């Protein structure tokens, strides 16, 4: 039997023929990177291959590195294996990786979201024989409302806070979620302020040409008047911290797919939880599997056991691939890059 096109190792998903790893979690010679979140783009690899759009963030986070880029859809050949990136709809620049050898196609989704937003390159189904899919939200309780409905909830909350003289502070991941929220905000309500970690990512994406509204970074010398009617976007770890105390009367919230669960929402002890995720929900995961035409589906991080059993009952060949990828973290230590202060 031929070597599988991709196989799990303790360093990551490995393509033996092409001698590269996809989103490896330990140092390797050649890494193919789906996007810039820290559980996917890690330091210490010999060479990086990623999308044009994802590279600036990765460089900013990992420092100097040897990197090549590909635009979406263009192929490159490594050891007889054809590799290409395809939009994943997760964060700006994020990609699925298509790997082909002699007509056999595997697709590794990376993190992905099937419904479009106003920022990320929209997800495209890529036909394949084997789909390696994340399933962070691989249970039927996870089904997202329309983005417009969530936008109305966030703006309603913000406007009410502004009217009551309170600052609205929203906990969001610095890369992706923060900027997506910006595209949903109604700038007529008040100014958008940013924590340093959020502003840093926003500036990079803005320079790349992504359309983002004006934001003001929170600095120690920011005049009090600038806080009037403001909404502050900050990493989740900043909420309730010493950093957050400067804002006086605050109402806080989180935007995350996990906010779908009331128990998690209550545990965070925030005033509001907005169900906004950059991952596919249960209907999205199922639609993605169908759209690719895959006959074999391997589940990685998330509710892998449930999702693969569900697919097996639909007649798919299934398996679970253990990885160190985390998806949308629920109760993990904060992303180190969120620790950037002012």
């Amino acid at each position: 039997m031929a070597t599988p096109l991709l196989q799990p190792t303790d360093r990551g998903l490995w393509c033996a023929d092409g001698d590269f790893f996809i989103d490896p979690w330990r140092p390797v010679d050649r890494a193919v990177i789906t996007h810039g979140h820290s559980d996917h783009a890690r330091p210490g690899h010999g060479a990086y291959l990623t999308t044009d759009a994802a590279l600036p963030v990765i460089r900013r986070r990992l420092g100097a590195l040897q990197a090549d880029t590909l635009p979406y859809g263009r192929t490159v050949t490594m050891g007889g294996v054809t590799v290409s990136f395809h939009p994943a709809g997760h964060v700006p620049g994020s990609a699925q990786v298509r790997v082909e050898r002699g007509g056999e196609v595997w697709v590794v989704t990376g993190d992905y979201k099937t419904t479009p937003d106003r920022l990320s390159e929209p997800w495209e189904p890529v036909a394949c024989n084997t789909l390696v899919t994340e399933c962070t939200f691989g249970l039927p309780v996870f089904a997202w409302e329309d983005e417009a409905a969530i936008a109305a909830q966030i703006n309603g909350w913000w406007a009410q806070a502004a009217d009551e003289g309170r600052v609205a502070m929203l906990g969001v991941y610095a890369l992706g979620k923060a900027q997506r929220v910006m595209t949903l905000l109604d700038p007529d309500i008040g100014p958008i302020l940013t924590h340093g970690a959020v502003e840093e990512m926003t500036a990079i994406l803005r320079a790349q040409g992504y359309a983002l509204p004006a934001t003001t970074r929170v600095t120690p010398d920011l005049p009090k008047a600038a806080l009037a009617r403001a909404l502050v976007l900050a990493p989740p770890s900043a909420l309730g911290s010493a950093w957050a105390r400067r804002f006086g009367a605050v109402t806080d919230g989180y935007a995350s797919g996990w906010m779908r669960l009331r128990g998690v929402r209550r545990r965070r002890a925030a005033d509001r939880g907005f169900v906004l995720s950059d991952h596919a929900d249960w209907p999205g995961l199922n639609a993605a599997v169908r759209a690719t035409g895959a006959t074999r589906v391997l589940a990685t991080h998330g509710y892998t056991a449930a999702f693969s059993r569900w697919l097996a009952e639909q007649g798919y060949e299934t398996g679970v691939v253990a990885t160190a990828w985390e998806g949308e973290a629920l109760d993990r230590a904060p992303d180190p890059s969120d620790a950037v202060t002012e």
Partner: protein
Amino acid sequence: MKRFADLYARLDETTSTSRKVAALADYFRDAPDQDRVWTIALLSGRRPKRTVTATRLAEWAAARAGIPMWLFTDSYAATGDLAETIALILPPGPGGDDRGLSDWIDTVRALAVADDAGKQAGVQAAWDVLADRERMLFNKLLTGGLRVGVSQKLMTRALAQATGLAEADLAHRLMGDWDPARATWAGLVLAPDPGADLSRPYPFALAYQLDDPPESLGDPADWATEWKWDGIRGQIVLRGGDWHLWSRGEEVMTDRFPEFARLADYLPPGTVIDGEVLAWDRAADAPQPFAALQPRIGRKSVPKKLLADAPARMLAYDLLEWGGQDIRARPFADRRAALEAAVAALPPAAPMGLSPLVTAPDWAGIAAARDQSRDRGAEGLMLKRHASPYGVGRKRGDWWKWKVDPFTVDAVMVYAQAGHGRRATLYTDFTFAVWDDSGGLVPFAKAYSGLTDAEFAEITAWVRKNTTDRFGPVRAVRPEMVFELAFEGIQHSPRHKSGIALRFPRMVRWRRDKPAAEADRLETLRALLAKG
């Protein structure tokens, strides 16, 4: 239901007590009368009884959502709440239904008498018209599990704000055996007939644990000291020739303790006494351990043998009503004197005695008495200011409980299970073991409280990586983590493999410094049996 769902959302959306009270007060100002009555009922633990079993409800929901039962079970395990799981997996609800809370509760109550097919049809019909968040509340009403994150105390405060009535009066009005299906807003809240409910108890006066040294309370001569017995706190209400026994949780226990009927022969009508219900050891003339009382709690009627083995007796703490007069505002010393006179009139065989006062000249003497609590079958002491009124609810200042320090043991975590509610997706419910004589680990206790959310999150990550076996939702884990457990008592228990059962076990510390081999041994626990 929309209006009640709005209230529920407002309460859910803030952690601020004053905002919760404001939201409730708004609701109490202008919601329809019968909805207000039911809201008071729900917030004071008077939920409609379960009309559908959780199992059937889950089956119908899974069928409606088109998913297999195992996937429903997995979803429930992740969500940690049955009613919410159902609301989340069903196809989105249309909303727009305008029937009120009490109307829906009538529907729920009517379903109680329907057959299985009728129940299923009724539930499906409701799911088809309700919006998602209303469905969750409806499901909770069906399973009898609707809880709102507001204490009865805050609810009473909101009611006071909305009506302009005094909080303490409202607290008393809302006590007792009223039926929300028959009560009216006017009759219950605005202008109740004081004679309407002869069984109505008074709100219990409660106390906080004394954490500071007793010297902080000033002159010991200002204080009365009592034993804090380890039984069931109760209130005996004798009025109009009838009698009722209430638990602190406002449950009627009258039928479970028939021996107290005789009190009506000796005490005049218009008498209300606060005391501790205990299983009595007649030979020793002393309380039996709490465990002896346990079999009497769960059942509606009491077999003769149980009456003989665990005869109930009340040790009286306080007199709240005498000659039909509410005397709660009088100083404790006066009430105590009246109580002593009343109880002194009882014959020795009566099922009530006086809870004796502890007398000592100084705090050191009182502390020494506290150290003897366990030997006497008490949990510690109660300190009450001689001048204090009988308060409503838990207050600081005049009454303190001063319990003995708990027992502790270092134990190894062997099983873990995910929690419910706000602890969904976190492993919080653990089974603990100690070493037995053969060098094996014997499970002996479960505990699920006492750690911080951050600690639970860290342990959850560890459990995921160190699972050795799965039994449904329960994971067996590598026996490596050691925790210090505290507990209030320990008993022989032939039903447990370890042969012991603990009272109120909880985690007090994560012993990161201790390897599993240094956890305690079963014989250490057995040695405590004599004391516990």
